[in-house]
């Protein structure tokens, strides 16, 4: 660690703990507390990256999170901010986007053709011949910057939490700390979020007294009960102060996203030191004053041996002191306030060597420190609607006004001695707490479950803070030479000039054209220089050019943290574990995990047709409807008539949306005088429930109907097959005789000794079948009883696939498969269910006009003439010998019962008549013919089996 300074009071290092790490494979050591950058620099490694386009050597510039020149690869993690990331033992750090090595990078050749690679050059070339563009493109892609993703990276532990603090303070510098303390002392719950690894802000690299004050403030904040999050960033402020915080320091978690509904947000993000634009400004060894101050004071790193300091402010002056203290000789102080300027810098491959001043002097040095002013990171305020305004006197942008629940304090809004900043912070904290109290009062008063509020609403405190001064500062943006404006994108001021001359003369256009400010630091360092250079190029003022809007996030946030623990809800019936234990292949249908089949769906079909099968149909949507107006509701939502359904009756219905498109279908039974049970499709259950509530609450508020979802409360089992009656008869007290309990009827009773069971006779499979609904706590037991008691009857479970085959054999359509997003009810062909003689039902007008026009497609059953061929679902039906589409296959299967292929198809009306020959284009390109059936049912069209 050749460039390490002797231990000093302000450093954050623990020199008793040595951390080994590697840099491009070379073994090095740093101390606990080092950043990767400080450890590298302490070891004499000043070149940390190569620039994006020209592959120029780059060293630390700002030595903080925003440093565009110190992005590295750490193990499998790309784009690590080396100046922010703490060194850990065993880290494998390497330079990104260089080849063959950091010190000799072949792509550096690009800079020799740099004058041709002007901003946006790629828009002007690589056009001809078109056939070669893919090659050009591929080559360009090879030049993508950034590190490398290891696609085998495991998804580590990321987490999230919600929070409801009264006050969130973004920024733990003196003003932020002071605000947090004041707010907490005023009774607010406060969350303080600091981007760095410790609170204190610029005090940490200030004087000994500064650091003492920082420690006092931190202690006071803890005492006041402030929740302090370090190495955490407020990444975004969204609507209604929905604040996103990325916390990288929570134990056991890589990164945690905190979603805070802040009653007040205090933005105390401080300022970011601006680089200066001049020729050679990206040479290694050119740094901001803040960079050298942090490196020397906090990290004990000697940044050079001989320095030129270009100073326009106290930070630059302080840097001079720090440099002297670190034993760096000061070759020249270029005092910007007396009008001295630097012109350009030249250097060797690895380091700045000489600085040219405007008085013609050439000063030899290996470190050039600039202190030319500040950028206000107004990002969070922008997200709250603030549009900052430029103040030429102070040479920086200031916030112009955010909503009442967002307050700014500290260096963002002005200058002052430490006490001034603390005082402003304090008054801001109090104001924030006062406003938060009002919001809290209102929230509590408006929220049913909250404690009753005490007393009247507190007065809303007005903003009576004494504003901070704005100290004058020279406008220093660019020297007389051109230099780099956006380091991460390698955009120079010259590029901006030429882009402006080409007509890209607004901030947004120039940004898009040159990509300035679009890189990984998102313009935190570059935006103001970009605006200033554009203003120069246009001859406008900076204020007129304006600024761009900073979009979230404030600082990049990992996809892992945004995803958190990946929780995707799934649902299971109580029998599902049995299915899986008994060889069922699970299938995910919507949220439900269901048995697709138990090995051989065709055999399951045959067993149903010959003996008896049982299927778990619990996901079927079930709604308990009670009240005197249920029949009216049913009549309004179903297309057919419901006013006369007797108790014990079951009826099938189709529901339409208001545009006449089929929404859902199912059967509904009348269980009692004012008691009905409605079933919906599995996927439609939630939708239909809100659909019903919508009609009841907004269109028919006078109707009395209570709707309660019972989908899970009742385990549903369909028993289908010739032996269904025999099987169920063994378990129930319900009279199953065909006369006592005919088709499309419902009965209640006990099954396997369980009370409160419902059975209805319906026939989706086309067999004699009973659908039983039993209290789900007993579902598994009854399922097992059915299998045990029916062994001699040949009972076997069947899955979803067998059911789909059987329903297709019966010609029943499935909403969403055989119909689509534009299929109005007449498409189903079930015209008898579309009762235009009712007063009103949802979607009726469109259905009426559709029936009148008769220009809609219609669902038909058809069978390929070659029964061994199963046309794919979605195979197109063509007008014979042409490519004109006249329909499509919507469902198709090989029927185990008929031992031939069967289909449902949507076809134009002209092709819907029984006996019509259809030409079907198979996926493999063959064309086959099929014939339209008379009935939808391929099997037992008269329904003798299900009525038997």
């Amino acid at each position, binding site marked *: 660690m050749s460039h390490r300074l002797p231990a000093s009071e302000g450093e954050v290092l623990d020199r008793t703990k040595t951390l080994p790490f590697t840099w491009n494979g070379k073994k090095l050591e740093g101390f606990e507390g080092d950043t990767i950058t400080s450890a590298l620099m302490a070891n004499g490694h000043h070149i940390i990256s190569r620039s994006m386009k020209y592959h120029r050597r780059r060293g630390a510039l700002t030595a903080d999170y925003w440093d565009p020149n110190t992005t590295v690869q750490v193990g499998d993690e790309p784009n690590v901010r080396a100046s922010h990331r703490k060194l850990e033992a065993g880290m494998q750090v390497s330079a990104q986007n260089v080849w063959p090595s950091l010190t000799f990078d072949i792509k550096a050749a690009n800079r020799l053709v740099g004058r041709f690679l002007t901003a946006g050059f790629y828009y002007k070339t690589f056009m001809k011949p078109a056939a070669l563009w893919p090659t050009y493109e591929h080559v360009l892609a090879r030049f993508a910057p950034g590190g490398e993703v290891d696609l085998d990276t495991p998804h580590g532990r990321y*987490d*999230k*939490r*919600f*929070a*409801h603090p009264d006050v969130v303070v973004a920024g733990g510098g003196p003003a932020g700390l002071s605000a947090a303390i004041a707010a907490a002392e005023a009774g607010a*719950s406060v969350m303080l979020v600091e981007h760095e690894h410790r609170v204190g802000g610029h005090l940490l690299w200030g004087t000994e007294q500064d650091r003492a004050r920082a420690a006092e403030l931190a202690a006071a904040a803890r005492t006041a009960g402030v929740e302090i999050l370090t190495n955490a960033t407020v990444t975004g402020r969204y609507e209604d102060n929905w604040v996103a915080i990325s916390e990288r320091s929570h134990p*056991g978690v890589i990164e945690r996203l905190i*979603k805070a*509904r802040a009653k007040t947000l205090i933005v105390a993000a401080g300022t970011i030191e601006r680089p200066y634009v001049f020729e050679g400004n990206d040479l290694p060894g050119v740094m901001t004053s803040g960079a050298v101050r942090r490196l020397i004071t906090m990290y004990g790193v000697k940044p050079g041996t001989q320095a030129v300091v270009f100073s326009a402010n106290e930070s630059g002056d302080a840097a001079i002191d720090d440099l002297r203290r670190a034993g760096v000789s000061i070759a020249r102080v270029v005092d910007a306030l007396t009008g001295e300027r630097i012109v350009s810098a030249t250097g060797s491959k690895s380091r700045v060597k000489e600085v040219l001043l405007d008085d013609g002097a050439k000063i030899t040095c290996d470190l050039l420190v600039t202190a030319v002013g500040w950028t206000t990171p107004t990002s969070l305020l922008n997200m709250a609607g603030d549009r900052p305004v430029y103040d030429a006197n102070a040479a920086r942008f200031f916030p112009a006004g955010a909503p009442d629940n967002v307050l700014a304090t500290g260096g963002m809004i002005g200058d002052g001695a430490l006490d001034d900043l603390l005082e402003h912070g304090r008054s801001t904290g109090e104001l924030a707490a006062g406003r938060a109290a009002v919001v*809290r009062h209102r*929230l*509590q008063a408006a*929220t*049913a*479950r*909250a*404690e009753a509020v005490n007393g009247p609403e507190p007065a809303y405190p007005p903003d009576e803070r004494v504003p901070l001064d704005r100290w004058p500062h020279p406008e220093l943006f660019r020297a007389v030479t051109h230099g780099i404006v956006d380091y991460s994108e390698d955009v120079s001021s010259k590029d901006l000039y030429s882009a402006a001359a080409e007509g890209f003369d607004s901030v947004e256009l120039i940004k898009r054209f040159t990509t300035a400010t679009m890189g990984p630091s998102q313009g935190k360092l570059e935006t103001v220089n970009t605006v200033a250079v554009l203003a120069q190029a246009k001859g406008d003022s900076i204020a007129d050019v304006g600024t761009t809007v900073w979009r979230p996030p404030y600082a990049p946030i990992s996809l892992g943290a945004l995803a958190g*623990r990946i*929780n*995707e*809800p*799934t*649902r*299971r*019936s*109580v029998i599902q574990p049995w299915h899986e234990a008994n060889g069922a292949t699970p299938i995910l249908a919507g949220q*439900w995990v269901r048995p697709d089949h138990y090995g051989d769906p065709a055999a399951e079909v045959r067993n149903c047709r010959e003996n008896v099968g049982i299927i778990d149909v*619990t*996901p079927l949507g079930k709604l*308990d409807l*009670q*009240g005197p107006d249920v029949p009216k509701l049913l009549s309004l939502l179903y297309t057919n008539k419901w006013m006369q359904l007797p108790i014990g009756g079951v009826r099938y219905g189709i529901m339409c949306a208001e545009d006449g498109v089929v929404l859902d279908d199912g059967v509904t039974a009348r269980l009692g005088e004012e008691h009905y049970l409605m079933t919906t499709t599995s996927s439609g259950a939630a939708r239909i429930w809100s659909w019903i509530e919508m009609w009841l609450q907004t269109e028919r508020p006078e109707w*009395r109907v*209570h709707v*309660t*979802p*019972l*989908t*899970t*409360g*009742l385990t549903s089992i369909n028993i289908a097959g010739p032996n269904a009656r025999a099987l169920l008869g063994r378990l129930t007290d319900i009279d199953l005789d065909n006369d006592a309990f005919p088709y499309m009827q419902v009965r209640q009773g006990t099954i396997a000794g369980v009370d*409160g069971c419902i059975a209805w006779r319906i026939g989706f499979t086309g067999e004699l079948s009973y659908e039983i609904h039993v*209290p*789900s*706590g007993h579902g598994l037991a009854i399922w097992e009883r059915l299998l045990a008691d029916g062994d001699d009857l040949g009972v076997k479970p069947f899955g979803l696939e067998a059911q789909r085959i059987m329903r297709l054999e019966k010609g029943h359509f499935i909403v969403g498969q055989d119909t689509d997003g534009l299929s109005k009810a007449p498409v189903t062909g079930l015209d008898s269910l579309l009762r235009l003689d009712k007063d009103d039902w949802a979607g009726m007008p469109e259905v009426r006009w559709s029936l009148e026009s008769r220009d809609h497609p219609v669902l038909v059953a058809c069978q390929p003439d070659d029964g061994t061929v199963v046309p794919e679902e979605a195979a197109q039906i063509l007008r014979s010998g042409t490519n004109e589409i006249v329909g499509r296959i919507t469902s198709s299967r090989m029927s185990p019962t008929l031992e031939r292929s069967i289909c449902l198809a949507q076809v134009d009306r002209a092709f819907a008549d029984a006996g019509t020959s259809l030409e079907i284009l198979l996926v493999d390109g063959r064309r086959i013919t099929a014939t339209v059936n008379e009935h939808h049912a391929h099997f037992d069209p008269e329904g003798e089996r299900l009525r038997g």
Partner: protein
Amino acid sequence: MASSVSHLDPMPKVSIRAADDTVAAQALGLAFGSAEQRDDTLVVRIRPDEWILLGTGALALAAELDLSGYASTVDITHARHVIRVTGTHAADTLAKLCSADFDEAMTPNGAAWGNSIAGVTCDIVRDDHGGERSYLLLFDGSFVAYFLGVLEDAAGEFSSDS
């Protein structure tokens, strides 16, 4: 235990729907958003026109109600499951998965409300036991495997300091 998650055995649960002006509504009382233990039954006014009765006496209590007017009951014993989250970090556990404010003032003991937790719609009842924070979560039983897993995962963070 800093935060424990337990799936309660099926307990009787009844949903009662009743308009404001019904006898049943008067008898059940309570302000919307609150819960109250009455003997062996927890009575929860979970919605302006819906009460949930939880506990061994639920069915009996429901049966006693006069359902004249616009009122009805549904046995939801099997439809909804209940998970109890208890412990000093019970609220912290839920705050990882639920956007509700578990602050004392916003959701005091006895508060009841509907919310989504990790994508599952729940009725939440703050039901402290012996001075310890505790929440009852009523949810559609088909989610139980998923939901228990998610809650236990969330509570895991707080298990070390139990």
